[in-house]
């Protein structure tokens, strides 16, 4: 059976790894990667790169010309590169154009969309663990989570109109791993990560290898529906900071917000309100549906994924650990 897979967002880390993994599969005849910027020097093997801005209708021509049958939409950005409106346009208008193109194409049989567990939000009123059926307590009214929420809305609309197409939505927890560069990984690489005074959220991570594996399986098999994807277990923020050998600086939430806004305005750090909500209230999701459907579990637990990220970036002994080592030396 011949497969032609189109991967959007191929110039980003996970997108590139997925395209590489698909290209290595002899079952797949062509892998076409699209993005707005060319991929970095990285060797993508036989992946054919096409530079397309998803916001333009050009994507329809690519899909039609290559007889694409599987579309993996990875191009969801969580950080405004230059402006929030450009990010929103990229995420929402880009998805609309892509889905419009898929809807017109008779060849497309499978669509996999990357979403995020951020769609559940993060408030003190949340259930401890979200299942795919849980409604967010508060629908996001800004930023990445709102984009993802709207994207999912369009995907549901598409799935209704093209019920013959297998449509899969994957809600990923925060990516973690040696090659991941996200606001959260940058946060953990700071020498003194600030935390919100009096809050210690539960966090969940999905290792990049597991993320690629889930996407690869979904691109090759028919599993319609929405799935949470996260490593088993949770880590508390305080636990992450300790594992990283860092000392955190607890700030009262209003001061945290103020400094976060100032850092963002100065372009030092990108810290959005939904990240503040996450590191105040945290979030955990249930992944039974994914495990049951694929008969597979992520290889890395949340803790193992975080440790793997730390190994790649070097861990130093924290001050308390050094003191303890000094006191217990033999």
């Amino acid at each position, binding site marked *: 059976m011949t497969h032609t897979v189109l991967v959007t967002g191929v110039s980003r880390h996970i997108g590139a790894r997925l395209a590489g993994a698909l290209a290595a599969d002899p079952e797949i005849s062509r892998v076409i990667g699209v993005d707005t910027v060319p991929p970095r020097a990285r060797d993508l093997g036989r992946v054919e790169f096409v530079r397309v801005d998803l916001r333009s209708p050009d994507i329809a021509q690519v899909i039609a010309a290559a007889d694409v049958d599987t579309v993996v939409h990875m191009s969801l950005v969580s950080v405004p590169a230059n402006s929030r409106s450009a990010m929103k346009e990229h995420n929402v208008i880009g998805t609309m154009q892509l889905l419009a193109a898929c809807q017109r194409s008779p060849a497309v049989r499978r669509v996999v969309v990357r979403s995020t567990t951020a769609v559940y939000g993060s408030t*003190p*009123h949340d259930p*401890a*663990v979200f*299942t795919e059926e849980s409604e967010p307590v508060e629908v996001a009214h800004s930023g990445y989570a709102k984009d993802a929420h709207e994207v999912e809305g369009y995907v549901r609309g598409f799935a209704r109109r093209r019920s013959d197409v297998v449509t899969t939505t994957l809600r990923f927890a925060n990516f973690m791993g040696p090659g991941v560069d996200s606001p959260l990984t940058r946060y953990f690489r700071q020498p003194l990560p600030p935390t*919100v005074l009096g*809050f210690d959220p539960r966090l969940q991570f999905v290792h990049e290898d597991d993320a690629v594996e889930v996407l690869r399986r979904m691109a090759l098999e028919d599993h319609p529906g929405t799935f949470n994807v996260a490593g088993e277990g949770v880590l508390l923020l305080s636990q992450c900071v300790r*594992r990283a050998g860092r000392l955190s600086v607890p700030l009262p939430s209003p001061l945290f917000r103020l400094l976060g806004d100032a850092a963002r305005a100065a372009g030092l750090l990108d810290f959005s309100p939904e990240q503040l909500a996450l590191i105040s209230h945290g979030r955990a999701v249930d992944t039974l549906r994914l495990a049951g459907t694929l008969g597979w579990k992520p290889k890395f637990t949340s803790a193992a994924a975080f440790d793997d990220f730390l190994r790649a970036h070097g861990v130093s002994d924290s001050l308390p650990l050094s003191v*303890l080592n000094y006191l217990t030396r033999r």
Partner: protein
Amino acid sequence: MEDFLTFLRRRVTGEYEVDEFGFDPELNDRVLLNIVRPLYRKWFRVGALGLENVPVEGGALVVANHSGTLPIDALMLQVALHDEAGRAVRLLGADLVYQLPVLGHLSRKSGHTRASPEDADRLLRKGELVGVFPEGFKGVGKPFSQRYKLQRFGRGGFVSSAIRAGVPIIPCAIVGAEEIYPKIGDLPTLARALGLPYLPITPLFPLLGPLGLIPLPSKWLIEFGEPIRTDRFDPDDADDPMVVFNQTDEVRERIQAQLNVLRLRRGPAFPPLSLF
């Protein structure tokens, strides 16, 4: 000493397990419970009865009366079940707790979570011992004159959860909490301004300032009653309001009857002052 140092090392390097609700059993056993245990043993001299009614393992729902102005009874119930029955109770707490800094995450670390059907169902499915105070703020914040009178039991969501999970309900009576901060008045306007459900006046608070926050050393008894089975119902009955209301009433009456007997059995709240 060796053990303590490995414990410290684990804590400092973050090498410990926390469950999906944020429960940190090690911190709970080695730190948090040790802080409240003196209150249990020395201050309130709590006696625990009917421990044979607490299952050794598997899911069950402990339903207790709630009183005392501040939810100290929740802490004492936790120590009783941990020390005397060997079980970590997972209490379902008010929303307010999880909005507040410090209190919210300490509560999660000691195993508790926000009262919601999702969380209750999930804990019971996992075979945990769940504890709930269906009176909520109506119970804990009731005036001293209403002591040992059970308040309304909400909508009976706890019964639905027990039926869905097919786990027994263990009625639990707590005597002694009523006397720790006798609430003789209320400051509703100030309470509203602070976003609190009530702001109590007790004989010592706010008169003595922070000293007024020391609970009076009443004698406590906690009794676990005979389990009420819910596996005689069909899981679908969890959505039948008639079944749920009747079952809620039965649990409420059982606890009220238990309370009346237990109160007599305890005798005076402050034994050395038996004339009082």
